[in-house]
């Protein structure tokens, strides 16, 4: 992998980050004057002017923008007025819980999705194939909040075997993770199936069979590595969906992660927390996309050259 390829991807990530920062800055300024929003209506104009000067709001916009970016670089994301603490602290203490949920859901996506896809591809045209694919269509159209509510009705209220909200034990993780992972597992299953079907007909698979390799060995050692590229792409794209989905799923199951925090912060218009979360997610997405691109180039060296042309 060439340095140039990596540098180009890094640059793209930086541009995306800069756009995210600019987006937040613009919307923040559009949202109105923070001074008049914070202070009561009957405050004299001289006090307002004083606050504006103190917060640098009397400066020209480009300067305000530069100050804003510099503050972000120093880790200053503003102050959460609800918690009376730096917004970044409020957000960071929720990150581990979201990561726990995200990893569990991602594991379900990868394991269930790929297993179902492999099964359907190997049994192509049989009842197993049709049943699996039918099930993926259902799972894909199921809104995650509805699935979550149905699971709560069934497992928490009727059968009383799983807890419906909170994060006290590992049992609490099961329903949110399944809810979050289900629709993504479905699309991974479809992609695994179609990309495996393409590979299974290749001459090298016949050779592997002729060598007398077992089915497991043929699939795991020969077919899967060659079918991996579309699947890795989909997994990378799905991570963004997982983050968006976590917002909904966390509030269905009262899972105390950044998704629930974001929903609450939006409801209470705690803007510093909202901007910290948005920028944190942008950073996460940039890192994920970068890693996916790198994995991509490593899995298939031809991509490097192709992508250079494709982005034109």
């Amino acid at each position: 992998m060439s340095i140039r390829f990596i540098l180009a991807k890094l640059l793209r990530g930086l541009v995306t980050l800069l756009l995210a920062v600019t987006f937040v800055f613009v919307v923040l300024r559009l949202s109105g004057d923070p001074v008049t929003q914070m202070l009561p209506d009957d405050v004299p104009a001289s006090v307002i002017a004083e606050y504006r000067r103190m917060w640098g709001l009397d400066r020209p916009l480009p300067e305000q923008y530069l100050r804003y970016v510099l503050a972000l670089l120093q880790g200053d994301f503003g102050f959460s007025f609800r918690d009376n603490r730096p917004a970044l602290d409020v957000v960071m203490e929720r990150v581990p819980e979201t990561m726990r949920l995200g990893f569990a859901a991602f594991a379900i996506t990868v394991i269930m999705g790929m297993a179902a896809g492999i099964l359907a591809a190997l049994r192509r045209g049989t009842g197993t194939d049709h049943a699996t694919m039918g099930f993926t269509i259902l799972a894909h159209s199921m809104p995650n909040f509805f699935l979550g509510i149905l699971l709560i009705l069934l497992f928490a209220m009727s059968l009383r075997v799983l807890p419906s909200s909170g994060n006290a034990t590992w049992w609490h993780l099961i329903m949110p993770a399944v809810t979050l992972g289900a629709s993504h597992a479905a699309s991974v299953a479809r992609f695994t199936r179609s990309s495996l079907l393409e590979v299974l007909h290749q001459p090298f698979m016949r050779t592997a069979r002729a060598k007398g390799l077992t089915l497991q060995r043929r699939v795991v050692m020969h077919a899967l590595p060659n079918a991996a590229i579309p699947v890795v792409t989909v997994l990378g794209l799905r991570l963004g969906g997982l983050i968006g989905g976590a917002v909904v799923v966390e509030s269905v199951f009262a899972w105390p992660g950044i998704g629930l925090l974001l929903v609450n912060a939006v409801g209470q218009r705690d803007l510093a927390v909202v901007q910290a979360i948005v920028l944190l997610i942008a950073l996460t997405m940039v890192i994920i996309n970068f890693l996916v691109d790198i994995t991509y180039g490593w899995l298939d060296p031809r991509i490097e050259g192709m992508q250079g042309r494709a982005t034109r």
Partner: protein
Amino acid sequence: MTVATPSETVTQNAPSRPRFPRRRGVPMVICLSAVWLVLVFVVALGADVIAPFGYVDQSLLNRLKPPAFLGGDPAHFLGTDGLGRDVLSRLIYAIRTSVLIAFFGTLIGASVGTLIGFLAAHFRGWVEDAVMVLVDFQASMPFLIIALAVLAFLGNSFWLFLVVVGLYGWETYARLARSLVLQANVQGYAFAIRTLGVHPVKIYVRHVLPNILSILVVQVTLNFPELILLETSLSFLGLGVQPPQTSLGLMLGEGRNYLATAWWMGIPAGIVIFLTTLSVSLVGDWLRDRLDPTLQVADS
């Protein structure tokens, strides 16, 4: 190269022959989906006529009555909610709100995205570069997060909500339209018209657009269910459509507090969302397979 005789042409076409018998019959699932979609649209358009009660009519004596088929009041087929409002009537109005938002939202996203795609393809150069950078940015950020941020910063009003939801997916239309226009521009017909000195806008609207419309329509069917999911998700979280208005997501969101005592408040709305997204996806996939033979080849 020899000139193909009629018999040769027939054998060349032979591989595509077996598809024709499949084309004629419409699968049962697709028929059912289409019927469901027609039903949803009829309900959405005729809500005022169909709904037995108003969606804000309260009857505090009739609170949390179970559906008629579970021994409730026959007048309230799907029972009543925590304020004694008729769930069926609310469901009907909710379908109207959700379908209208999804419909106009799709219209907004498709027009804005397509226009941007056309501009990028026409001007090339830095305009195109800027558009592609924005497209990349949009594609790499989860849209739900952006929508939440905008609603948080700018406050929630129905029209702002409609525009925000509508912008969902603009980048897919822009990317698609750009590449389709670039392809069309090098084809004979566009070149021929341009040499006649026709104004570029007229070329794009009268000649290029009709030629690429079918592919854009397929994209619309892919986008529509996602838009319904976006609107219902935001409304479910209480950050979309605001009471006393109602939407499918909002109904399910309100109903989740009554799961133990009155599940009928929210579950019907969830079922409608599920069946609608499922139907649009099934019909969309089917349409795509019929309209675009190249995808069919890539799929098998």
